[in-house]
């Protein structure tokens, strides 16, 4: 799978919820090769912030070589804050597509579960998957991307404050809506992924988790973003897998989280 580092052009950007930004960029190469569940590295122009920021791919428009990235501004003075100031016509350095992505050839009735800023990759996945899709999304309070997701499946919502859908987390939404599935695809905070892994084990269904870890290179060289694997990994020769390169998507049974 080829990877490219390039200057991409900003097509548009908007804040779709508080601190959640939706950025469309036109890439030279990256979008044509990208698939659901992969990510890109974004670079700031600030010499104080040199490391790339991994951002998941929310939508891919291969014909026009465009990518949609939906990300959270993580605070004042952060790299993501700098990205949020990008405007149409600006340029940004991007590397990608990175990581393995979700498998998209399964046909079983599926849960696509996203929590918080783990929701964006579910949109491209929902577009690419050809099966019955139950899209379960969990928010703290303010919702985003629900209308986009509704085009590709039935959307069930959970909010921590109960302001929309079921009060609670994504698994509360699964239970309260009496849902079931034969396969799970999930991305979100680690406690959510742990609960989903347990749920999948109970139900004895396959489960794909997209993990997050602090990264440096994004291409598998620095060994910063490892997760613990259940078995000795062939590449590392220890019980570690690289989230950026071997992942970010793993079978729940492969990893200890």
């Amino acid at each position, binding site marked *: 799978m080829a*990877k490219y580092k390039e200057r991409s052009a900003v097509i548009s950007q908007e804040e779709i919820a508080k601190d959640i930004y939706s950025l469309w960029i036109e890439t030279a190469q990256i979008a044509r090769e990208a698939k659901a569940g992969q990510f890109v590295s974004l670079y700031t122009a600030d*010499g104080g912030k040199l490391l790339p920021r991994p951002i998941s791919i929310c939508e891919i428009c291969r014909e026009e070589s465009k990518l949609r990235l939906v990300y959270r501004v993580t605070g004042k003075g952060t790299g993501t804050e700098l990205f949020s100031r990008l405007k149409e016509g600006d340029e940004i350095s991007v590397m990608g597509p990175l990581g393995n992505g979700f498998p998209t050839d399964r046909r079983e009735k599926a849960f696509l579960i996203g929590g918080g800023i783990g929701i964006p990759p579910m949109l491209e996945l929902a577009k690419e998957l050809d099966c019955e899709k139950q899209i379960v999304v969990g928010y703290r309070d303010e919702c985003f991307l629900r209308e986009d997701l509704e085009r590709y499946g039935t959307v069930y919502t959970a909010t921590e404050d109960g302001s929309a859908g079921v009060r609670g987390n994504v698994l509360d939404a699964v239970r309260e809506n009496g849902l079931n599935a034969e396969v799970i695809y999930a991305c979100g905070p680690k406690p959510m992924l742990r609960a989903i892994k347990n749920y999948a084990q109970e139900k004895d269904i396959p489960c794909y988790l997209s993990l997050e870890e602090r990264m440096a290179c994004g291409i*598998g060289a*620095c060994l910063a*973003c490892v997760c613990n694997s259940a078995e000795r990994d062939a590449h590392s*020769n220890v019980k570690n897998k690289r989230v950026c*390169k071997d992942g970010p998507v793993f079978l729940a049974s492969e990893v200890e989280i």
Partner: protein
Amino acid sequence: MDLRVNIAGVEWKNPVTVASGTFGSGEEYAEFMDLGRLGAVTTKGVANVPWEGNPTPRVAEIHGGMMNAIGLQNPGIDLFCKRDIPFLRQYDTKIIVNVCGRSVEDYCEVVERLSGEDVDMLEINISCPNVREGGIAFGQDPKAAEDITKAVKKYAGQPVIMKLSPNVTDIAEMARAVEAGGADAVSLINPLTGMKIDIYRRTFALANKTGGVSGPAVKPIAVRMVYQVANAVKLPVIGMGGIASAEDAVEFILAGASAVSVGTANFINPTIAAEIADGIAKYMKSCGFESVAEMTGIVK
């Protein structure tokens, strides 16, 4: 104009290698470029047995650089010899194997094993500040550094580069110690030890508490130490620490380095090391230098 350099009897096609641990064994970078564009590839440190490394988070960004505490995760010398050496041999570049260990015996075991392998040079990491077991004592004490140099030299089948830690009062003293121990070359600097605290979670940014600081932020300290060492010993010096451009590389060479390593910059631009080799050639042409040796250490 000649880009070639001779480091302890080994001829590199250009004076650029990569800092150990920033380049794996080259596989991930081969997706972006021909590794044959580099004078040498320096591998991630390898030990006698596989090491798991530290818990995560293993990296944190700092202003103008990064901090890491990977903990020398490595697949062990057996898999390394079987997989990584043949992989690198496909490319027209020299192979420098970085060696780490928990004891003199560990180091010697790896060095001895490598003496029969098709690699060009060894680099001995006696200074990685991340791992409590990673040899910090050797790298901060002249006597210990001299002793381990002597020990590995007994087993070495290739020229030995001793990699120096910057976390010392007198770097020149350390260089003289490894010279006395029989080192064939020195490389410096390994990262400086740093710490970052997340003030909102009130915890360390790295699971290991401390980590090695690298990137452009440390360059002036590295240039100073390369200058001190180059003026203290006769050994060739491989300079590194924050090199992110050909101009940075030339700065190290003018300070006394015979060759340079590109480190953290590889994480930001995977083809930067090769671009730096090209850029050095351009600089030499524009300034009328005929060879790298001619530039080495001319600023006194």
